[in-house]
């Protein structure tokens, strides 16, 4: 046993906290299972709601995806996304990204990981990748279950566009996949905010709640039309830009802009998170 070794035999900083290990640490958590269950059950709740409520037609002349929800499986999946993109899908993203570091601090397991030692940047990177992967899985789960359940309930057919016209089922399914990706990307800003707060506070609820709160503030600001073009710089403004591809002639401009805005906020907030955690005194 030579005492001049810089590290224990077999230790490599780049092998610490592999993604598989971090995923295993997070996967069996109750909140993970609850989120998964809620998202998997939600489509069935919607199907039940449509079955009980029947079809009421559109309200006050405005057309929305809900009017054509039961037209086909893809319609139903699109509707499920439409009703959940504003809030239901924001919660898991904020939860997975906001809780990831703060919960470890709360359990005191953070200091043992850091003393293992897992280099701080590597720890954050592993946690971030796993949190985003979980978020992606959550966001993808809902439309997948909705598509499957909707196809069983309403059949596999073309997407009926509320304003008229149809999209072939194959095209519509591909567009739904793109939409799902966009919904995730559009929530990167929320994810990054939660992640940053997670490195700042030891209270998981503070990080998740803070991110949700600011996201809601963004939504409120977006409702103030007097802000005019300033709203273009709110991630919430582009939240539903994906509706642009549910028409015969898909429009990607809004989604590109939304992606730009969301990614910009995310990059800065992620950097703030890394910067803060890098130099932080861990006292939890």
């Amino acid at each position, binding site marked *: 046993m030579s*005492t*001049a*070794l*810089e*590290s*224990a035999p*077999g*230790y*490599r*900083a*780049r*092998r610490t906290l*592999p993604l598989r*290990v971090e995923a*295993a*640490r997070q996967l069996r*958590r109750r909140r993970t299972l609850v989120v998964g269950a809620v998202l998997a059950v939600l489509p069935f709740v919607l199907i039940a709601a449509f079955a009980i409520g029947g079809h009421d037609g559109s309200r006050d002349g405005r057309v929305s995806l809900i009017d054509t929800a039961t037209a086909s499986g893809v319609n139903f999946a699109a509707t499920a996304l439409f009703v959940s993109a504003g809030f239901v899908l924001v919660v898991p993203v904020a939860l997975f990204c906001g809780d990831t570091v703060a919960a470890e601090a709360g*359990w005191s*397991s953070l200091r*043992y*990981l*850091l*003393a*293992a030692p*897992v*280099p701080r940047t590597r720890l954050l990177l592993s946690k971030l990748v796993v949190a985003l992967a979980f978020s992606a899985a959550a966001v993808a789960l809902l439309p997948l279950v909705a598509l499957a359940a909707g196809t069983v309930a309403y059949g596999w057919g073309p997407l009926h566009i509320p*304003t*008229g016209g149809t999209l072939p089922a194959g095209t519509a399914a591909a567009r739904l996949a793109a939409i799902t990706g966009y919904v995730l990307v559009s929530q990167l800003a929320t994810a990054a905010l939660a992640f940053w707060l997670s490195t700042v506070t030891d209270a998981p609820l503070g990080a998740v709640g803070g991110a949700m709160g600011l996201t809601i503030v963004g939504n409120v600001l977006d409702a103030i039309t007097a802000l005019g073009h*300033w709203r*273009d*710089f709110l991630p919430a403004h*582009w939240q*539903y*830009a994906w*509706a*642009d*591809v549910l*028409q*015969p*002639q898909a*429009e990607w*401009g*809004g989604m*590109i*802009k939304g992606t*730009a*805005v969301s*990614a*910009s*906020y995310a990059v*800065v907030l992620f*950097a*703030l998170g*890394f*910067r803060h955690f*890098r*130099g932080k*005194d*861990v*006292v939890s």
Partner: protein
Amino acid sequence: MKLPRITVRRPGRGRLAAVVAALAVLAGAGTWGVAASASGPPAVHREDRFLTMPESPGSKATVRLDTSFFTAGSTGRRPAVLLAHGFGGSKDELRGQAEELARDGYAVLTWSARGFGASTGRIGLNAPDAEVADVSRLIDWLAKRPEVRLDKPGDPRVGIAGASYGGALALLAAGYDKRVDAIAPQITYWNLADALFPGDVFKKLWSGIFFTTGSTAASAPAGGSASNSGRKGAVGTGCGRFQPELCAMYQRVAVAGRPDAQARQLLEQRSPSAVAGRIRVPALIVQGQSDSLFPLDQADQAAGAISRNHAPVAVDWVAGGHDTGYGEQDRIGRRARAWFDRYLKDDRSADTGPVFRVSRTGGLDTTAGKPQLRGASDRSYPGLRNDPRPIALTGREQRFANPAGAGPPAVSTLPGLGGASQLSGLGLGVSLDFPGQYAHFDSARLKEGVHVTGAPVARVKVASDSGEAVLFAKVYDVGPDGRQRLPGQLVAPVRVTDARDGRVVELRLPAVDHTFEAGHRMRLVLAATDLGYASPVQPATYTVSLAGGGLSVPTAPGVRTGSSALPWWTWGMPLGAVAVAAALLLTGRRRSAAPAAPDPRPAEVPLQITGLTKRYAKSADRYAVQDLSFRVERGQVLGLLGPNGAGKTTTLRMLMGLIRPDGGEIRVFGHAIRPGAPVLSRVGAFVEGSGFLPHLSGRANLDLYWRATGRPAEDAHLDEALEIAGLGSALDRAVRTYSQGMRQRLAIAQAMLGLPDLLILDEPTNGLDPPQIREMREVMIRYAAAGRTVIVSSHLLAEVEQSCTHLVVMDRGRLVTAGPVAEITGAGDTLLVGVEGEVSEVLAEKVAALPGVGSAVPAETGLLVRLDGASTAQLLAELVRLEVPVSSVGPHRRLEDAFLTLIGGSA
């Protein structure tokens, strides 16, 4: 925008800089926006005046034109631009545009044309000796202005722009007055007769709107009403401010329901086409794709004629038009400015844009709530019959009726009710054909999409039992689901005469820019009626069949769609964000206390702490640890002793790289400790309680922890560790069900995973029962005996003295003493002498003065005595001699008391 001045305190500098940087990006666009408006555009100076013109050249009668002259900025001479308004408007609608041009360095003249606004006179529909002559008088006036640049005396550098009625005036003025240097006519006509009487069919709805607008304008202004009312009787009612011959022509045609040669001639004389050979100036021709009043072929003829005169021409097909409103005015305004910059200011760097550009409607942008437009362009103008492709149509001969009274009419467009056709781009337009009143011929489903740019052509044979047929030809785009839409909501009317026995005619269909997708069909429809046009009121039966192939559709493969117009920030914002993120990550690194190369000399030393200092957060002079130095050798079991708050845990946290010292250095096996230092992998630690994932079992926790270290599984020595934990079957239960002691043992086991060379245990016996405590001591002693090193922190002297070889005693962040256990505890055995009743200071002093006693201090329940030579028996004898009511004598090891003695002894 100015940032508030912020005084930055030393420790916060990095963080504040980060926040400011982040805000700067988030507010980035705003900062520039504010800066632009703060610098302020130059004020625009406006002069309003009436100019008097002869009513016609040489006549005594005059008209007065209401004009505004706009200039801005410097006093030098500049090119001039005349802005002409549309039909029914006045100079007022041009004010914003004029001010913008003025700020751009032009002298701008706007005026209300004859019969409009506050100007007097009669509407002559751009008559050469009236409205067009007025423009020459205005140019004369401009030539005398000191602000206006002259090409030669009396000839100013001047361009004309205008839309619709004003656009035609621009074309006409360029034809009649050689002094005009460039024009930018928009959505206007080339031949008004063709526009109002296409295919010799009267466009009754648009013409009606046109003439009614001119007539009702009469009642409003005061200026001309007196002279008008005088002649009103001569021209009949409802003529308003129109010239009598125009009014009579309109009324004649409207009553007859069909144009006559005289009417055509009257309108053609006043159309730009009359001076086709004389328009030789650079022309930017803008035309609308949803314009059933002045369709694209009007612009096509204008562009062709001016090109033949060898003048530069650019053609721009915008979305919208007279039917729907004109939604691209901002872009066209910029383009017209660039056009004038190039041809009036001679600025060769000005980008006049592509020779041909067409706005293509994409889908709806739901966020903005309007359809997306994107430009497609080419370096040459393809015209309306470029690269034609045959599309076969099928359909037998069909008979259909022209209903008596021409009603109910088919619907293609609703002039003025723009909304309906605006939706056509989205497949939502209103179009309607009545069964039995039309014939249709369909293509097969298209194997590949066809983008039609221009006017399709078809040959059909038409017969009418009345000898004459008026047909409305249109090409529908029929989707796979059978829904049909009419591109541009446009129809091409045609009058076929001498058709009793059938005549083959070539139909020229409306010019459009439209993609027929693969799987769609083209459907040629010939209808007997259309809401917008006058068709024969006599009932008739038409028979129509295809005469040859089918449709010949023009394409323009050279016209390429550019990247969609995304605002600059779509790319700029992420780039800026990446820059800010990089700045955030690259700056504000705390000085990393240059971890000098490992010192070979103390490489054998498991732990060397030198001058270690840590202040409390946000404090300049309160120290958690101050100037701490000690050293631990191999094989030692070191007790780190001190009361709560002595700085033990802070020291251990610094040792684990969790917090950074403010000063001093920690070296483990010669390597300086910083966060994540690899040498920490040789250190096992249990500090301040356990830290486990509560939802996982003890075994899973240890397993995942070891896997998180990234080291080989066989190095973990898991079984040895588990033996120490001694959890038995509880190991497979979730940690949240564990008691405090179980967690404690599991945490110690975790610290021992991999048998680290340096093991740190912070209060390891908290929550353990006595047998476990004893076992733990043995574990530590055995562990160090194998050549490893153990550091145990505790606030109980009794605990550490039984297992430790060496002690470091701390109090309030400072080192009190360090050395072998025997040296510290053996230097004076401390006894607690239980005394009944109060112990006075005097008594303590007396005892302290006894021979062989180091110190004596009163304690809560008696007297603390440190022996210095005397034995317990001797002391007891002396106490009895002093008549102290001794109730008990025993060793006392509570640390607080040991401290009292240590401190008392040194005092």
